[in-house]
């Protein structure tokens, strides 16, 4: 089933704060360079990439030299506003060095709730992909009150994958995949290579196997899988420590956990859209 990923033409890649930054919160430039390198190379093969990136608040805190994050909402949102500007500047720098154009798209849950916003966001994304530009997406934390506290980019990236009619969502974080048991407690815990069905058992084990990174955890990742399954989008959870892993995944080589589902039969128009974006 992994081999099927070699045919994916539209891919959403989500990177978490733990992938982008060192444990002290400052950006890991080496990793960002390798990420930009990997994604730009994939884009050259004619596949379309959408990047969903966290990290704005961490970058904002770094810019202001703060040791810890502010506790109040306004303080966090101010940091997000400072950090997002810095983050897009750094991405632009690394992608431009590889002659790959990028765009910034900041979204809120409006794209799920409001049809007009949804339509606008969808049009923007399709137009950018048509022009061979990599959209770099984040939550618009500055205005998204209810979202910043409970929201997470795992869920956002799933909605983006659905909106963009992607074939595959890759969730990169600091865990290697879904384990058969909590690897911190069970030394014989193994990565499950393919999951075809989300069972109650699986949900229970996911709730227990959390890690300390970012705002997400395995639970939000399973939620992202659930959103994607509704639209027939496959999801891979993998470790982002080496961004080259993205190349392995889309070459169909087993590299983490694949949440498999077959493409929806009634989604024929999706394939047509993919063809269109490929020929432009």
């Amino acid at each position, binding site marked *: 089933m992994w081999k099927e990923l070699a045919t994916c033409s539209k891919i959403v890649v989500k990177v978490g704060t733990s992938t982008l930054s060192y444990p002290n919160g400052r950006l890991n430039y080496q990793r960002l360079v390798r990420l930009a390198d990997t994604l730009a190379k994939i884009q050259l093969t004619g596949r379309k990439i959408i990047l969903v990136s966290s990290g704005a608040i961490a970058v904002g805190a770094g810019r202001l030299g703060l040791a810890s994050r502010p506790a109040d909402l306004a303080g966090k949102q101010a940091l997000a506003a400072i950090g997002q500007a810095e983050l897009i500047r750094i991405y632009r720098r690394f992608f431009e060095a590889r002659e790959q*154009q990028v765009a910034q798209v900041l979204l809120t849950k409006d794209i799920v709730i409001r049809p007009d916003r949804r339509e606008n966001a969808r049009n923007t994304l399709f137009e950018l992909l048509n022009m061979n530009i990599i959209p770099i997406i984040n939550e618009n934390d500055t205005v998204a009150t209810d979202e910043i506290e409970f929201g997470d980019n795992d869920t956002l990236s799933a909605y983006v994958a659905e909106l963009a009619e992607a074939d595959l969502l890759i969730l990169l974080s600091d865990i290697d995949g879904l384990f058969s048991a909590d690897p911190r407690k069970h030394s014989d815990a193994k990565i499950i290579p393919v999951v075809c069905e989300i069972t109650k058992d699986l949900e229970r084990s996911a709730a227990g196997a959390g890690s300390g990174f970012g705002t997400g955890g395995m639970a939000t990742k399973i939620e992202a899988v659930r959103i994607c399954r509704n639209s027939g989008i496959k999801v891979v959870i993998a470790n982002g420590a080496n961004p080259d892993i993205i190349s392995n995944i889309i070459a169909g080589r087993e590299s983490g956990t694949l949440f498999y589902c077959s493409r929806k039969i009634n989604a024929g128009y999706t394939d047509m859209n993919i063809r269109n974006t490929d020929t432009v």
Partner: protein
Amino acid sequence: MQRKVRIVFKVEIDTLFDDNGKLSPRKTEQLTMVCADLQNSGISIALVSSGAIALGAGKLGQELIPLNITGKQAAAAVGQAELIIMYQDYFDHYDQTLAQVLLTRDVTDNPVRNRNARNTLACLLDQGIVPVINENDSVSTSDIILNDNYPLVLIVASLTDADAIVVNTYEEGRFLLIKKNFSEIIELDAGELPDFIFEFAGGKMESEGDIEGFPDFTQYADK
């Protein structure tokens, strides 16, 4: 409550671009210097800046600004990144930190978002950070359709409880200073701005932040 005097700067295409439609480094340098200088004088500045679509079109090698909405939105997504990076590069020379704030019109009629945007902007202004504000064109199209950011400027003036709005005139280096409630408008040179702003604010370094600020233009909100 005592706080710094707050000014909203309306940045139009003409403020940043030359007559040929190219970004003017000289004009941009002049604007950022004026803003950084006002910050140094103890006045808080918020920029409401156009220019994303024009910059995006330029970046994409398009001779003309795209006419259809989707084309404009894509140009805006590319250009907003360019715009905020450009401001950072210029403000970095003056050791001035900025923040990017992308709003949608519902900040006026959604009470939670309204309070939220107010708090975030106040937090930035109080820390001496310049918010650079634009409409979030990727999901909202009212400014694109209107082709002017005046409604957004008035919304931001209201959200920040601004003491005055500054608008550039057709003559380079000359500005219009618009007092709260439009009770007074004067034209002046950039160099005169700090003194006049303090005079406008009642001759004090701090504003009382009274309730009679710029009116909320909720009727412009896209419902």
